[in-house]
Protein backbone atom coordinates (compact mmCIF):
# COMPACT_ATOMS: atom_id res chain seq x y z
CA UNK A 1 0.00 0.00 0.00
CA UNK A 2 2.16 2.84 -1.13
CA UNK A 3 -0.61 5.45 -1.14
CA UNK A 4 -3.28 4.65 1.46
CA UNK A 5 -4.56 8.23 1.35
CA UNK A 6 -5.19 8.14 -2.36
CA UNK A 7 -6.84 4.76 -2.10
CA UNK A 8 -9.18 6.06 0.51
CA UNK A 9 -10.04 9.08 -1.65
CA UNK A 10 -10.74 6.80 -4.58
CA UNK A 11 -12.86 4.50 -2.42
CA UNK A 12 -15.03 7.36 -1.17
CA UNK A 13 -15.33 8.86 -4.64
CA UNK A 14 -16.53 5.54 -6.01
CA UNK A 15 -18.97 5.20 -3.13
CA UNK A 16 -20.26 8.69 -3.81
CA UNK A 17 -20.84 7.99 -7.49
CA UNK A 18 -22.44 4.61 -6.75
CA UNK A 19 -24.81 6.17 -4.23
CA UNK A 20 -25.70 9.05 -6.54
CA UNK A 21 -26.57 6.76 -9.47
CA UNK A 22 -28.97 4.85 -7.23
CA UNK A 23 -30.24 8.10 -5.75
CA UNK A 24 -31.13 9.39 -9.23
CA UNK A 25 -33.44 6.41 -9.81
CA UNK A 26 -35.04 6.87 -6.41
CA UNK A 27 -35.45 10.62 -7.01
CA UNK A 28 -37.16 9.95 -10.34
CA UNK A 29 -39.55 7.49 -8.70
CA UNK A 30 -40.23 9.93 -5.86
CA UNK A 31 -40.82 12.83 -8.26
CA UNK A 32 -43.16 10.90 -10.55
CA UNK A 33 -45.07 9.52 -7.56
CA UNK A 34 -45.32 12.99 -6.05
CA UNK A 35 -46.61 14.52 -9.28
CA UNK A 36 -49.17 11.76 -9.80
CA UNK A 37 -50.37 11.84 -6.19
CA UNK A 38 -53.07 14.52 -6.80
CA UNK A 39 -54.65 12.46 -9.59
CA UNK A 40 -54.40 9.23 -7.61
CA UNK A 41 -56.02 10.89 -4.60
CA UNK A 42 -58.70 12.75 -6.55
CA UNK A 43 -59.60 10.19 -9.21
CA UNK A 44 -58.63 7.10 -7.25
CA UNK A 45 -56.46 4.30 -8.62
CA UNK A 46 -59.44 2.15 -9.60
CA UNK A 47 -60.85 4.59 -12.13
CA UNK A 48 -57.65 4.44 -14.16
CA UNK A 49 -58.78 0.90 -14.98
CA UNK A 50 -62.57 1.16 -14.91
CA UNK A 51 -63.50 4.47 -16.61
CA UNK A 52 -65.31 4.22 -19.97
CA UNK A 53 -62.54 5.99 -21.92
CA UNK A 54 -59.44 8.22 -21.79
CA UNK A 55 -60.71 11.79 -22.11
CA UNK A 56 -58.92 13.62 -19.30
CA UNK A 57 -60.46 16.97 -20.23
CA UNK A 58 -63.91 15.43 -19.73
CA UNK A 59 -62.90 13.55 -16.58
CA UNK A 60 -62.41 10.02 -17.97
CA UNK A 61 -59.11 8.33 -17.21
CA UNK A 62 -59.07 4.72 -18.44
CA UNK A 63 -55.44 3.75 -19.07
CA UNK A 64 -55.95 0.05 -19.86
CA UNK A 65 -55.91 0.38 -23.69
CA UNK A 66 -52.60 2.24 -23.43
CA UNK A 67 -51.08 -0.33 -21.06
CA UNK A 68 -52.12 -2.98 -23.57
CA UNK A 69 -50.74 -0.87 -26.42
CA UNK A 70 -47.34 -0.54 -24.74
CA UNK A 71 -47.13 -4.25 -23.92
CA UNK A 72 -48.36 -5.42 -27.36
CA UNK A 73 -46.08 -3.17 -29.40
CA UNK A 74 -43.02 -4.06 -27.31
CA UNK A 75 -43.76 -7.79 -27.16
CA UNK A 76 -44.41 -7.93 -30.89
CA UNK A 77 -41.17 -6.11 -31.64
CA UNK A 78 -39.17 -8.46 -29.39
CA UNK A 79 -40.82 -11.53 -30.92
CA UNK A 80 -39.55 -10.38 -34.32
CA UNK A 81 -36.21 -8.92 -33.31
CA UNK A 82 -34.97 -11.57 -30.87
CA UNK A 83 -34.73 -14.51 -33.35
CA UNK A 84 -33.31 -12.22 -36.03
CA UNK A 85 -30.75 -10.72 -33.68
CA UNK A 86 -29.59 -14.07 -32.30
CA UNK A 87 -29.39 -15.59 -35.79
CA UNK A 88 -27.37 -12.58 -36.95
CA UNK A 89 -24.94 -13.13 -34.07
CA UNK A 90 -24.62 -16.87 -34.83
CA UNK A 91 -23.99 -16.11 -38.48
CA UNK A 92 -21.36 -13.56 -37.53
CA UNK A 93 -19.53 -15.84 -35.11
CA UNK A 94 -19.70 -19.19 -36.89
CA UNK A 95 -20.70 -18.87 -40.53
CA UNK A 96 -19.63 -15.48 -41.90
CA UNK A 97 -16.46 -15.28 -43.99
CA UNK A 98 -13.84 -13.44 -41.89
CA UNK A 99 -13.65 -10.63 -44.45
CA UNK A 100 -17.33 -9.88 -44.01
CA UNK A 101 -17.34 -9.86 -40.19
CA UNK A 102 -16.14 -6.36 -39.42
CA UNK A 103 -18.34 -4.81 -42.12
CA UNK A 104 -21.37 -6.68 -40.78
CA UNK A 105 -20.63 -5.59 -37.22
CA UNK A 106 -20.16 -1.95 -38.27
CA UNK A 107 -23.39 -1.98 -40.25
CA UNK A 108 -25.32 -3.21 -37.23
CA UNK A 109 -23.58 -0.61 -35.09
CA UNK A 110 -24.72 2.03 -37.57
CA UNK A 111 -28.28 0.71 -37.34
CA UNK A 112 -28.07 1.22 -33.57
CA UNK A 113 -26.87 4.79 -34.01
CA UNK A 114 -29.74 6.07 -36.19
CA UNK A 115 -31.88 8.47 -34.12
CA UNK A 116 -35.36 7.19 -33.36
CA UNK A 117 -37.08 10.15 -35.01
CA UNK A 118 -35.52 9.08 -38.32
CA UNK A 119 -37.01 5.60 -37.95
CA UNK A 120 -40.33 7.22 -37.13
CA UNK A 121 -40.20 9.51 -40.13
CA UNK A 122 -39.29 6.63 -42.42
CA UNK A 123 -42.13 4.61 -40.94
CA UNK A 124 -44.60 7.44 -41.50
CA UNK A 125 -43.70 8.21 -45.11
CA UNK A 126 -42.85 4.70 -46.41
CA UNK A 127 -44.14 1.93 -44.17
CA UNK A 128 -47.50 3.44 -43.19
CA UNK A 129 -48.66 4.11 -46.80
CA UNK A 130 -47.68 0.51 -47.66
CA UNK A 131 -49.74 -0.91 -44.80
CA UNK A 132 -52.53 1.51 -45.72
CA UNK A 133 -52.81 -0.19 -49.10
CA UNK A 134 -53.29 -3.53 -47.35
CA UNK A 135 -55.69 -2.23 -44.76
CA UNK A 136 -56.44 1.45 -43.94
CA UNK A 137 -55.49 3.59 -42.06
CA UNK A 138 -51.92 2.25 -42.06
CA UNK A 139 -51.02 3.81 -38.72
CA UNK A 140 -51.33 0.66 -36.69
CA UNK A 141 -50.04 -1.82 -34.15
CA UNK A 142 -48.28 -3.58 -37.03
CA UNK A 143 -46.44 -0.43 -38.13
CA UNK A 144 -45.31 0.14 -34.54
CA UNK A 145 -44.11 -3.44 -34.17
CA UNK A 146 -42.12 -3.33 -37.42
CA UNK A 147 -40.43 0.01 -36.71
CA UNK A 148 -39.63 -0.95 -33.11
CA UNK A 149 -38.29 -4.35 -34.18
CA UNK A 150 -35.89 -2.60 -36.51
CA UNK A 151 -34.81 -0.28 -33.70
CA UNK A 152 -34.12 -2.95 -31.07
CA UNK A 153 -32.61 -5.47 -33.47
CA UNK A 154 -29.07 -4.03 -33.22
CA UNK A 155 -29.15 -4.15 -29.40
CA UNK A 156 -30.00 -7.85 -29.45
CA UNK A 157 -27.61 -8.63 -32.31
CA UNK A 158 -24.61 -6.86 -30.75
CA UNK A 159 -25.12 -8.18 -27.22
CA UNK A 160 -25.74 -11.74 -28.49
CA UNK A 161 -22.59 -11.40 -30.56
CA UNK A 162 -20.65 -10.43 -27.44
CA UNK A 163 -22.22 -13.30 -25.48
CA UNK A 164 -21.27 -15.85 -28.15
CA UNK A 165 -17.78 -14.39 -28.33
CA UNK A 166 -17.24 -14.89 -24.62
CA UNK A 167 -18.00 -18.63 -24.69
CA UNK A 168 -14.69 -20.20 -23.52
CA UNK A 169 -12.54 -21.50 -26.37
CA UNK A 170 -12.04 -24.90 -24.72
CA UNK A 171 -15.81 -25.55 -25.04
CA UNK A 172 -15.40 -25.20 -28.80
CA UNK A 173 -12.29 -27.40 -28.86
CA UNK A 174 -14.06 -30.06 -26.81
CA UNK A 175 -17.04 -29.96 -29.17
CA UNK A 176 -14.68 -30.33 -32.12
CA UNK A 177 -12.93 -33.22 -30.39
CA UNK A 178 -16.30 -34.93 -29.96
CA UNK A 179 -16.82 -34.59 -33.71
CA UNK A 180 -19.85 -32.33 -33.40
CA UNK A 181 -20.99 -30.58 -36.59
CA UNK A 182 -20.89 -26.79 -36.70
CA UNK A 183 -24.65 -26.50 -36.09
CA UNK A 184 -24.38 -29.19 -33.40
CA UNK A 185 -21.74 -27.09 -31.65
CA UNK A 186 -23.84 -23.94 -31.93
CA UNK A 187 -27.12 -25.43 -30.78
CA UNK A 188 -25.78 -27.93 -28.23
CA UNK A 189 -22.82 -26.09 -26.69
CA UNK A 190 -22.55 -22.40 -27.56
CA UNK A 191 -26.18 -21.26 -27.23
CA UNK A 192 -26.75 -22.91 -23.83
CA UNK A 193 -23.47 -21.43 -22.55
CA UNK A 194 -24.38 -17.94 -23.83
CA UNK A 195 -28.03 -17.90 -22.74
CA UNK A 196 -27.44 -15.48 -19.87
CA UNK A 197 -25.79 -12.89 -22.09
CA UNK A 198 -28.40 -13.24 -24.81
CA UNK A 199 -31.19 -12.77 -22.26
CA UNK A 200 -29.50 -9.61 -21.00
CA UNK A 201 -29.53 -8.30 -24.55
CA UNK A 202 -33.21 -9.09 -24.95
CA UNK A 203 -33.98 -7.41 -21.62
CA UNK A 204 -32.15 -4.24 -22.66
CA UNK A 205 -34.00 -4.29 -25.97
CA UNK A 206 -37.28 -4.69 -24.12
CA UNK A 207 -36.51 -1.65 -21.99
CA UNK A 208 -35.74 0.36 -25.10
CA UNK A 209 -38.94 -0.83 -26.81
CA UNK A 210 -41.14 0.09 -23.86
CA UNK A 211 -39.52 3.50 -23.51
CA UNK A 212 -39.44 4.45 -27.19
CA UNK A 213 -41.59 7.51 -27.88
CA UNK A 214 -41.05 9.48 -31.08
CA UNK A 215 -41.10 6.59 -33.55
CA UNK A 216 -44.20 4.93 -32.12
CA UNK A 217 -45.91 8.31 -31.82
CA UNK A 218 -45.48 8.80 -35.56
CA UNK A 219 -46.58 5.38 -36.82
CA UNK A 220 -49.04 3.92 -34.30
CA UNK A 221 -52.08 6.15 -34.89
CA UNK A 222 -52.43 7.02 -31.18
CA UNK A 223 -56.14 6.25 -30.87
CA UNK A 224 -56.92 5.18 -27.31
CA UNK A 225 -58.88 2.01 -28.01
CA UNK A 226 -58.27 -1.67 -27.35
CA UNK A 227 -56.80 -2.98 -30.64
CA UNK A 228 -58.73 -5.88 -32.15
CA UNK A 229 -56.11 -6.76 -34.72
CA UNK A 230 -52.68 -5.91 -36.09
CA UNK A 231 -54.16 -3.22 -38.36
CA UNK A 232 -55.85 -1.26 -35.57
CA UNK A 233 -54.23 1.90 -34.23
CA UNK A 234 -52.87 1.90 -30.67
CA UNK A 235 -51.51 4.50 -28.28
CA UNK A 236 -48.62 3.67 -25.98
CA UNK A 237 -48.07 5.24 -22.57
CA UNK A 238 -45.01 7.12 -23.81
CA UNK A 239 -46.85 8.53 -26.83
CA UNK A 240 -49.67 9.57 -24.51
CA UNK A 241 -47.32 11.65 -22.38
CA UNK A 242 -45.59 13.20 -25.40
CA UNK A 243 -48.87 14.05 -27.15
CA UNK A 244 -50.69 15.61 -24.24
CA UNK A 245 -48.13 16.91 -21.74
CA UNK A 246 -47.46 20.26 -23.38
CA UNK A 247 -51.15 21.11 -23.41
CA UNK A 248 -52.32 19.63 -20.16
CA UNK A 249 -53.98 21.56 -17.36
CA UNK A 250 -53.26 20.61 -13.74
CA UNK A 251 -55.53 17.56 -13.24
CA UNK A 252 -54.76 16.28 -16.72
CA UNK A 253 -51.03 16.78 -16.11
CA UNK A 254 -51.16 14.77 -12.93
CA UNK A 255 -53.04 11.99 -14.77
CA UNK A 256 -50.22 11.92 -17.32
CA UNK A 257 -47.73 11.40 -14.49
CA UNK A 258 -49.83 8.39 -13.50
CA UNK A 259 -49.18 6.98 -16.97
CA UNK A 260 -45.49 7.67 -16.32
CA UNK A 261 -45.75 5.75 -13.06
CA UNK A 262 -47.41 2.85 -14.90
CA UNK A 263 -44.54 2.92 -17.38
CA UNK A 264 -42.01 2.74 -14.53
CA UNK A 265 -43.93 -0.21 -13.10
CA UNK A 266 -43.83 -2.05 -16.44
CA UNK A 267 -40.08 -1.48 -16.79
CA UNK A 268 -39.45 -2.57 -13.18
CA UNK A 269 -41.54 -5.73 -13.66
CA UNK A 270 -39.75 -6.50 -16.92
CA UNK A 271 -36.34 -6.00 -15.33
CA UNK A 272 -37.33 -8.22 -12.40
CA UNK A 273 -38.55 -11.03 -14.64
CA UNK A 274 -35.52 -10.94 -16.89
CA UNK A 275 -33.14 -10.93 -13.90
CA UNK A 276 -34.98 -13.92 -12.42
CA UNK A 277 -34.87 -15.72 -15.75
CA UNK A 278 -31.19 -14.95 -16.19
CA UNK A 279 -30.33 -16.27 -12.71
CA UNK A 280 -32.28 -19.45 -13.33
CA UNK A 281 -30.54 -19.94 -16.69
CA UNK A 282 -27.10 -19.29 -15.23
CA UNK A 283 -27.81 -21.62 -12.29
CA UNK A 284 -28.98 -24.40 -14.61
CA UNK A 285 -26.23 -23.80 -17.15
Amino acid at each position, binding site marked *: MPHPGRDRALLWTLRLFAVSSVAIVLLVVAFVSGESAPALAEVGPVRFFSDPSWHPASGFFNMVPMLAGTVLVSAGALLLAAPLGVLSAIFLQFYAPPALRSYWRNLIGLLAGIPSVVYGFWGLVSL*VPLINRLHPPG*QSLLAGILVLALMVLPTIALLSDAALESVPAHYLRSAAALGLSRWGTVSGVVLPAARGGILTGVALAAARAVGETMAVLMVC*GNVVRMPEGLFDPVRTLTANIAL*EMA*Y*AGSAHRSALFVSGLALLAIVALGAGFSEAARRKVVANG
Partner: protein
Amino acid sequence: MKRVFLAIGMLALGACRSKDPASGSSGPEAERKLVLTGSSTIAPLASEIAKRFEAKHPGVRVDIQTGGSARGISDALAGLADIGMASRELNPDEAANGLTAIPIAKDGIGLIVHRDNALLGLTRQQLVSVYTGQVTNWRQVGGKDARLTVVNKAEGRATLELFLHFTGLKSTDIQASVVIGDNAQGIKTVAGNPDAIGYVSIGTAEHDASLGTPIRLISVDGVAASLATVGDGTFPMSRALNLVVKGQPNGLARDFIEYSRSAEVHDLVKAEFFVPLGPTGT
Protein backbone atom coordinates in the same frame (compact mmCIF):
# COMPACT_ATOMS: atom_id res chain seq x y z
CA MET B 1 -7.00 15.26 -7.08
CA LYS B 2 -9.49 16.16 -4.38
CA ARG B 3 -9.85 19.59 -5.84
CA VAL B 4 -10.91 18.06 -9.16
CA PHE B 5 -13.67 16.07 -7.51
CA LEU B 6 -14.75 19.12 -5.59
CA ALA B 7 -15.00 21.01 -8.86
CA ILE B 8 -17.07 18.25 -10.43
CA GLY B 9 -19.36 18.28 -7.41
CA MET B 10 -19.81 22.04 -7.65
CA LEU B 11 -20.62 21.75 -11.33
CA ALA B 12 -23.20 19.06 -10.63
CA LEU B 13 -24.76 21.20 -7.91
CA GLY B 14 -24.88 24.16 -10.24
CA ALA B 15 -26.63 22.09 -12.91
CA CYS B 16 -29.21 20.94 -10.39
CA ARG B 17 -30.26 24.45 -9.45
CA SER B 18 -33.55 25.06 -11.11
CA LYS B 19 -34.06 28.01 -13.40
CA ASP B 20 -35.50 31.16 -11.97
CA PRO B 21 -39.27 31.18 -12.22
CA ALA B 22 -40.74 33.79 -14.50
CA SER B 23 -40.06 36.84 -12.43
CA GLY B 24 -42.09 39.44 -14.29
CA SER B 25 -41.08 42.92 -15.27
CA SER B 26 -41.05 44.41 -11.78
CA GLY B 27 -37.36 43.73 -11.10
CA PRO B 28 -35.28 46.71 -10.01
CA GLU B 29 -32.39 45.85 -12.37
CA ALA B 30 -31.59 47.97 -15.38
CA GLU B 31 -32.68 45.21 -17.70
CA ARG B 32 -36.44 45.10 -18.10
CA LYS B 33 -37.95 41.72 -18.79
CA LEU B 34 -41.26 40.67 -20.29
CA VAL B 35 -42.45 37.08 -19.93
CA LEU B 36 -44.90 35.53 -22.41
CA THR B 37 -46.19 31.97 -22.05
CA GLY B 38 -48.84 29.91 -23.79
CA SER B 39 -50.00 28.78 -27.21
CA SER B 40 -47.44 27.00 -29.35
CA THR B 41 -49.31 28.35 -32.38
CA ILE B 42 -48.56 31.94 -31.42
CA ALA B 43 -45.09 31.42 -29.90
CA PRO B 44 -43.11 31.47 -33.20
CA LEU B 45 -44.82 34.70 -34.27
CA ALA B 46 -44.40 36.22 -30.82
CA SER B 47 -40.70 35.45 -30.77
CA GLU B 48 -40.19 37.07 -34.19
CA ILE B 49 -42.07 40.15 -32.99
CA ALA B 50 -40.06 40.06 -29.76
CA LYS B 51 -36.74 40.13 -31.65
CA ARG B 52 -37.79 43.28 -33.48
CA PHE B 53 -39.23 44.78 -30.30
CA GLU B 54 -35.97 44.16 -28.41
CA ALA B 55 -34.00 45.78 -31.22
CA LYS B 56 -36.12 48.92 -30.89
CA HIS B 57 -36.05 48.97 -27.08
CA PRO B 58 -32.50 48.47 -25.79
CA GLY B 59 -32.35 46.93 -22.34
CA VAL B 60 -35.60 45.02 -22.77
CA ARG B 61 -35.64 41.25 -22.85
CA VAL B 62 -38.69 39.32 -23.97
CA ASP B 63 -38.82 35.72 -22.76
CA ILE B 64 -41.22 33.39 -24.59
CA GLN B 65 -42.26 29.95 -23.36
CA THR B 66 -44.79 27.57 -24.89
CA GLY B 67 -47.16 25.23 -23.10
CA GLY B 68 -50.50 25.65 -24.79
CA SER B 69 -53.27 28.24 -24.60
CA ALA B 70 -54.48 26.83 -21.30
CA ARG B 71 -51.10 27.53 -19.70
CA GLY B 72 -50.97 31.01 -21.20
CA ILE B 73 -54.33 31.89 -19.70
CA SER B 74 -53.62 30.39 -16.28
CA ASP B 75 -50.15 32.00 -16.13
CA ALA B 76 -51.59 35.41 -17.01
CA LEU B 77 -54.23 34.95 -14.32
CA ALA B 78 -51.73 33.80 -11.67
CA GLY B 79 -49.25 36.54 -12.57
CA LEU B 80 -46.58 34.00 -13.60
CA ALA B 81 -46.45 35.65 -17.01
CA ASP B 82 -46.84 39.29 -17.99
CA ILE B 83 -48.71 38.25 -21.11
CA GLY B 84 -50.40 34.94 -21.91
CA MET B 85 -50.73 33.69 -25.48
CA ALA B 86 -54.05 32.03 -26.34
CA SER B 87 -55.13 30.83 -29.77
CA ARG B 88 -58.76 30.79 -28.70
CA GLU B 89 -61.33 33.15 -27.21
CA LEU B 90 -61.59 33.47 -23.45
CA ASN B 91 -64.50 31.58 -21.98
CA PRO B 92 -66.94 33.55 -19.76
CA ASP B 93 -65.31 32.29 -16.53
CA GLU B 94 -61.90 33.51 -17.61
CA ALA B 95 -63.28 36.89 -18.69
CA ALA B 96 -65.10 37.19 -15.36
CA ASN B 97 -61.76 36.70 -13.56
CA GLY B 98 -60.61 39.99 -15.03
CA LEU B 99 -58.63 38.73 -18.02
CA THR B 100 -58.58 40.68 -21.27
CA ALA B 101 -57.82 39.08 -24.63
CA ILE B 102 -56.34 41.32 -27.30
CA PRO B 103 -56.12 39.90 -30.85
CA ILE B 104 -52.87 40.33 -32.78
CA ALA B 105 -53.66 38.19 -35.86
CA LYS B 106 -56.11 35.67 -37.23
CA ASP B 107 -55.73 32.02 -38.15
CA GLY B 108 -58.13 29.63 -39.84
CA ILE B 109 -58.47 25.90 -39.44
CA GLY B 110 -59.12 24.13 -42.71
CA LEU B 111 -60.05 20.59 -43.67
CA ILE B 112 -57.39 18.86 -45.71
CA VAL B 113 -57.59 15.77 -47.91
CA HIS B 114 -55.08 14.11 -50.22
CA ARG B 115 -54.50 15.90 -53.55
CA ASP B 116 -55.90 12.88 -55.45
CA ASN B 117 -59.19 13.10 -53.58
CA ALA B 118 -61.66 14.89 -55.88
CA LEU B 119 -64.03 15.96 -53.08
CA LEU B 120 -64.71 19.70 -53.19
CA GLY B 121 -66.13 20.35 -49.77
CA LEU B 122 -68.23 19.26 -46.82
CA THR B 123 -71.08 20.86 -44.96
CA ARG B 124 -70.96 21.19 -41.20
CA GLN B 125 -73.51 18.37 -40.89
CA GLN B 126 -71.43 16.06 -43.10
CA LEU B 127 -68.36 16.91 -41.06
CA VAL B 128 -70.18 15.89 -37.89
CA SER B 129 -71.19 12.56 -39.48
CA VAL B 130 -67.63 11.90 -40.61
CA TYR B 131 -66.06 12.63 -37.24
CA THR B 132 -68.65 10.70 -35.21
CA GLY B 133 -68.24 7.56 -37.32
CA GLN B 134 -71.76 7.61 -38.83
CA VAL B 135 -70.10 7.92 -42.22
CA THR B 136 -67.27 5.48 -42.91
CA ASN B 137 -67.01 5.62 -46.71
CA TRP B 138 -66.23 8.60 -48.91
CA ARG B 139 -69.14 7.61 -51.20
CA GLN B 140 -71.61 8.60 -48.45
CA VAL B 141 -70.46 12.23 -48.65
CA GLY B 142 -70.17 12.40 -52.43
CA GLY B 143 -66.66 11.03 -52.92
CA LYS B 144 -65.14 7.86 -54.32
CA ASP B 145 -65.72 4.37 -52.93
CA ALA B 146 -63.05 4.10 -50.22
CA ARG B 147 -62.90 3.78 -46.46
CA LEU B 148 -62.38 7.06 -44.64
CA THR B 149 -59.37 7.66 -42.42
CA VAL B 150 -60.37 10.26 -39.84
CA VAL B 151 -57.43 12.23 -38.43
CA ASN B 152 -58.07 13.95 -35.11
CA LYS B 153 -55.94 16.12 -32.81
CA ALA B 154 -54.77 15.08 -29.37
CA GLU B 155 -56.68 16.20 -26.30
CA GLY B 156 -55.87 19.70 -25.07
CA ARG B 157 -54.89 21.30 -28.40
CA ALA B 158 -56.51 24.64 -29.20
CA THR B 159 -57.11 23.43 -32.78
CA LEU B 160 -59.25 20.60 -31.41
CA GLU B 161 -61.16 23.03 -29.20
CA LEU B 162 -62.00 25.26 -32.16
CA PHE B 163 -63.04 22.23 -34.20
CA LEU B 164 -65.30 21.03 -31.38
CA HIS B 165 -66.73 24.52 -31.00
CA PHE B 166 -67.57 24.72 -34.72
CA THR B 167 -69.04 21.21 -35.02
CA GLY B 168 -70.79 21.33 -31.65
CA LEU B 169 -69.28 17.95 -30.77
CA LYS B 170 -67.72 16.79 -27.50
CA SER B 171 -64.30 15.14 -27.63
CA THR B 172 -65.90 11.91 -26.36
CA ASP B 173 -68.15 11.84 -29.48
CA ILE B 174 -65.29 11.67 -31.96
CA GLN B 175 -64.38 8.33 -33.52
CA ALA B 176 -60.93 8.83 -35.02
CA SER B 177 -58.71 6.45 -36.96
CA VAL B 178 -55.52 8.40 -36.22
CA VAL B 179 -54.68 10.92 -33.50
CA ILE B 180 -51.90 13.39 -34.17
CA GLY B 181 -50.03 16.10 -32.30
CA ASP B 182 -48.96 19.09 -34.33
CA ASN B 183 -49.93 20.48 -37.76
CA ALA B 184 -46.83 19.07 -39.46
CA GLN B 185 -47.67 15.54 -38.36
CA GLY B 186 -51.24 16.02 -39.57
CA ILE B 187 -50.12 17.19 -42.99
CA LYS B 188 -47.68 14.27 -43.37
CA THR B 189 -50.37 11.81 -42.33
CA VAL B 190 -52.86 13.09 -44.91
CA ALA B 191 -50.17 13.41 -47.60
CA GLY B 192 -49.35 9.71 -47.11
CA ASN B 193 -52.94 8.46 -47.15
CA PRO B 194 -55.23 9.11 -50.17
CA ASP B 195 -58.35 8.44 -48.08
CA ALA B 196 -57.59 10.58 -45.04
CA ILE B 197 -59.25 13.76 -43.83
CA GLY B 198 -57.84 16.04 -41.16
CA TYR B 199 -57.91 19.62 -39.98
CA VAL B 200 -54.88 21.91 -39.63
CA SER B 201 -53.96 25.59 -39.65
CA ILE B 202 -54.90 26.99 -43.09
CA GLY B 203 -51.75 29.09 -43.50
CA THR B 204 -49.48 26.10 -42.90
CA ALA B 205 -51.55 23.91 -45.23
CA GLU B 206 -51.55 26.55 -48.01
CA HIS B 207 -47.80 26.96 -47.69
CA ASP B 208 -47.05 23.20 -47.73
CA ALA B 209 -49.42 22.63 -50.66
CA SER B 210 -47.67 25.38 -52.62
CA LEU B 211 -44.37 23.58 -52.02
CA GLY B 212 -45.78 20.43 -53.62
CA THR B 213 -47.00 18.43 -50.60
CA PRO B 214 -49.89 16.34 -51.99
CA ILE B 215 -52.67 17.82 -49.88
CA ARG B 216 -55.66 20.00 -50.73
CA LEU B 217 -57.83 22.31 -48.62
CA ILE B 218 -61.55 21.72 -49.15
CA SER B 219 -64.41 24.13 -48.59
CA VAL B 220 -66.57 24.17 -45.47
CA ASP B 221 -70.28 25.03 -45.84
CA GLY B 222 -69.48 26.20 -49.36
CA VAL B 223 -66.80 28.70 -48.28
CA ALA B 224 -63.35 28.11 -49.75
CA ALA B 225 -60.62 27.69 -47.15
CA SER B 226 -57.96 30.32 -47.75
CA LEU B 227 -56.16 33.08 -45.92
CA ALA B 228 -58.36 35.50 -47.92
CA THR B 229 -61.65 34.13 -46.58
CA VAL B 230 -60.18 34.00 -43.07
CA GLY B 231 -59.15 37.63 -43.46
CA ASP B 232 -62.58 38.88 -44.56
CA GLY B 233 -64.29 36.85 -41.85
CA THR B 234 -66.41 34.64 -44.11
CA PHE B 235 -64.61 31.35 -43.36
CA PRO B 236 -66.48 29.68 -40.48
CA MET B 237 -63.60 27.89 -38.71
CA SER B 238 -61.33 30.77 -37.82
CA ARG B 239 -59.86 32.04 -34.60
CA ALA B 240 -58.18 35.09 -33.22
CA LEU B 241 -54.64 34.77 -31.93
CA ASN B 242 -54.80 36.60 -28.65
CA LEU B 243 -52.48 38.13 -26.12
CA VAL B 244 -54.05 37.81 -22.69
CA VAL B 245 -53.42 40.15 -19.78
CA LYS B 246 -54.96 40.58 -16.35
CA GLY B 247 -56.92 43.80 -16.19
CA GLN B 248 -55.71 46.47 -18.57
CA PRO B 249 -52.18 46.22 -19.92
CA ASN B 250 -49.70 48.82 -18.79
CA GLY B 251 -46.07 49.77 -19.14
CA LEU B 252 -43.91 47.47 -21.13
CA ALA B 253 -46.71 44.94 -21.73
CA ARG B 254 -48.88 47.65 -23.28
CA ASP B 255 -46.05 48.77 -25.55
CA PHE B 256 -45.45 45.21 -26.68
CA ILE B 257 -49.13 44.53 -27.39
CA GLU B 258 -49.54 47.78 -29.32
CA TYR B 259 -46.45 46.98 -31.33
CA SER B 260 -47.74 43.45 -32.06
CA ARG B 261 -50.97 44.93 -33.44
CA SER B 262 -49.27 47.57 -35.58
CA ALA B 263 -48.71 47.44 -39.32
CA GLU B 264 -44.95 47.28 -38.62
CA VAL B 265 -45.17 43.54 -37.93
CA HIS B 266 -47.59 42.56 -40.73
CA ASP B 267 -44.73 41.06 -42.72
CA LEU B 268 -43.88 38.83 -39.74
CA VAL B 269 -47.53 37.77 -39.39
CA LYS B 270 -47.63 36.81 -43.08
CA ALA B 271 -44.30 35.00 -42.85
CA GLU B 272 -45.80 32.76 -40.14
CA PHE B 273 -48.81 32.05 -42.44
CA PHE B 274 -51.34 34.00 -40.39
CA VAL B 275 -53.67 36.82 -41.43
CA PRO B 276 -52.85 40.34 -40.18
CA LEU B 277 -55.57 42.34 -38.46
CA GLY B 278 -57.60 44.68 -40.66
CA PRO B 279 -57.21 48.47 -40.49
CA THR B 280 -59.88 48.62 -37.78
CA GLY B 281 -57.83 46.32 -35.58
CA THR B 282 -60.24 43.39 -35.68
